[in-house]
């Protein structure tokens, strides 16, 4: 490992607004934030050199910022995440890449025990970000398709974000880096190259903890995040022809949840579908549905329907994986059921 690279004083990566893919937006956030703040560094398996990670999200960073700030690690999630804890306590802002979100379980203790509890116990601030390329539908099998966010939303002391658009991919990553707490950033790898969108240039920071209405509607509300925002929007289109007017709320942040926006959206239509790609049982959707059942009970006009992955490992074979995942069709059926209720 070479230590000879200094910090860059080059201008920000992209001062002007552009249309970027979701993946490009992630890379741009890393460029901008590393350029802005010398305390920001990137670490993980294969993130360095010319390679730039299994998905090329960190490509170009080592060339610009040097090996010192883009650190290749051995396969040791528990300890390189633990190392990030120590770096963060000393005031650095490490951005740790898990090669796939599936491998975040290998670093579990360093996250849920150390990072999550440290500020509460008076140990100090742990301002890191873990980037976790998650989600499936791309035939990667049980160990390269997982959506493990529920484990972390359940655990007190972690923030969790899950962008669904290129603009949020950039803005929430920047916000996560600037946040003084450990933030797990679930990036939906099926969106990497499949969606493009307008992304503000230069510094662009979204607010953590704020949901966004992606579509307004008066009949049924679909609450979703990540890939499923797009699936929900598809489903909304499908039923629009039949005069069913669907609202889609994108949670964007899973912890802290934007309870105000959730309740407002639920109350508006009185009929709610909650959707995520992660398996349904004790998923984040259960929290959203329970919240509504407790706080917006009076406004409810129908059962709250949850749609998620089935309660199985993520199967590989296309017909099985398709049966496993939420889909526009499944959401459409739920919407119609509620509309008819």
């Amino acid at each position, binding site marked *: 490992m070479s230590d000879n690279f200094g910090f860059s004083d080059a201008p920000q990566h992209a001062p002007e607004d552009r249309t970027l893919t979701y993946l490009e937006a992630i890379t741009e956030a890393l460029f901008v934030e590393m350029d802005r703040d010398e305390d920001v560094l990137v670490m993980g398996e294969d993130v360095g050199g010319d390679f730039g990670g299994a998905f090329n999200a960190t490509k170009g960073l080592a060339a610009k910022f040097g090996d010192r700030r883009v650190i290749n690690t051995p*396969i040791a999630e528990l300890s390189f995440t633990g190392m990030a804890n120590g770096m963060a306590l000393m005031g650095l802002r490490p951005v740790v890449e898990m090669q796939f979100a599936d*491998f975040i*379980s290998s670093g579990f203790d360093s996250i849920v025990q150390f990072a999550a509890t440290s500020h509460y116990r008076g140990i100090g601030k742990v301002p890191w970000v873990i980037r976790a390329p998650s989600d499936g539908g791309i035939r990667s099998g*049980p*160990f390269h398709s997982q959506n493990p966010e529920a484990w972390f939303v359940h655990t007190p002391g972690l923030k969790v974000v899950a962008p669904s658009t290129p603009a949020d991919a950039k803005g929430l990553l920047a916000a996560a880096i600037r946040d003084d707490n450990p933030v797990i950033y679930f990036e939906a790898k099926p969106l990497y190259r499949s969606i493009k969108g307008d992304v503000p240039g230069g510094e662009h920071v979204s607010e953590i903890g704020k949901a966004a209405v992606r579509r307004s509607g008066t009949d049924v509300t679909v609450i979703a995040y990540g890939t499923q925002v797009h699936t929900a929007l598809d489903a909304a289109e499908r039923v629009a022809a039949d005069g069913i007017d669907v609202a889609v709320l994108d949670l964007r942040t899973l912890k802290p949840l934007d309870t105000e926006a959730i309740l407002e959206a639920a109350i508006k239509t009185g009929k709610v579908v909650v959707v995520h790609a992660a398996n349904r049982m004790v998923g984040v959707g259960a929290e959203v549905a329970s919240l509504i059942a407790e706080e917006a009970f009076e406004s409810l006009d129908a059962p709250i329907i949850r749609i998620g992955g089935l309660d199985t490992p993520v199967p590989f*074979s296309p*017909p*099985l994986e398709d049966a496993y995942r939420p889909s526009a069709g499944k959401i459409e059926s739920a919407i119609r059921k509620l509309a008819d209720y």
Partner: protein
Amino acid sequence: MNETLRLNAYRWMTLTRTFDETMVAMWKQGRGIGGTFSERGHEAVSVGAGMALGPDDVVAPMHRDLGTYLLRGMTPERIFGNLLGRQMGVSGGRDANLHGLGDLDLNIIGFISHIPQAIPTALGAAMAFRYRDEPRVAMTFVGDGGSCSGAFHESLNMAALYNAPFVLIIENNQYAYSTPLSQEMKIADIAGRLPGYGLAATTVDGNDVEAVYAATTDAVERARSGGGPSVIEARTMRMLGHAIHDGAQYVPEALLAEWESRDPVRMFRTRLIKGGVPAEDLDALDQAAATEIAAAVRVAEAAPLPDPESVGEGVFA
């Protein structure tokens, strides 16, 4: 190795190589589903080590040990079926590529992505044999990359402590994905870690199937006779990318050229011919392998995908 074993070893190596080349070609043609892993360059390790096991021994191969699966009786057909997500594939379409190739009837524990989970699992199998006083051995594999991970340490410490009938093959193929050995560890000699556990370790040329076989046979016999665990570091080279999509531009060409000149299959073929085996006999084995693999692909490609209605089956026993 005697003559029979040598021909057997060649047979498995050429079958493995043919499988691999066919698979790589299919994926390049877009006939694959998802990604997959080539094990080109690892044939001597997977075949040499696998052949050292008895039929009742258990093995937990990793993603570059195709030869071990084949020689234990997992048919190319079922493996292609797995790669293609077919119902008749080893995992019934549930697991991907070279993961999930498990069949306890063949005494094979299937691979799991999370590195190096195979080590404690295989150690547990060894502990079961010890518990029941059965003369069986459990063997598994780990990469140079996987050897940096905590379970390596925890498990080898326990293997030594419990004197388990356990054999670990370290496949040091110079890289973990894009990361060269020099960025994985300060040392160059992974086997040098083993005395720290009170374990003996040997280093062998991982491109020499007979050397791998000899070292593994010693280790298996020691384990079987109550002499406890051992570890073998096989030095080899991953000749293609990490996975099928990876062009591996990060590997210096000279390094590849050097190892290409020591290709395990060709090297062994040359040795056999020098030792008096008629080239035609080997050609016949190559031909048989080609026929077998082609047939396997035909069967797997024609086989049906699983019924989506079955997706929920089998979560619990």
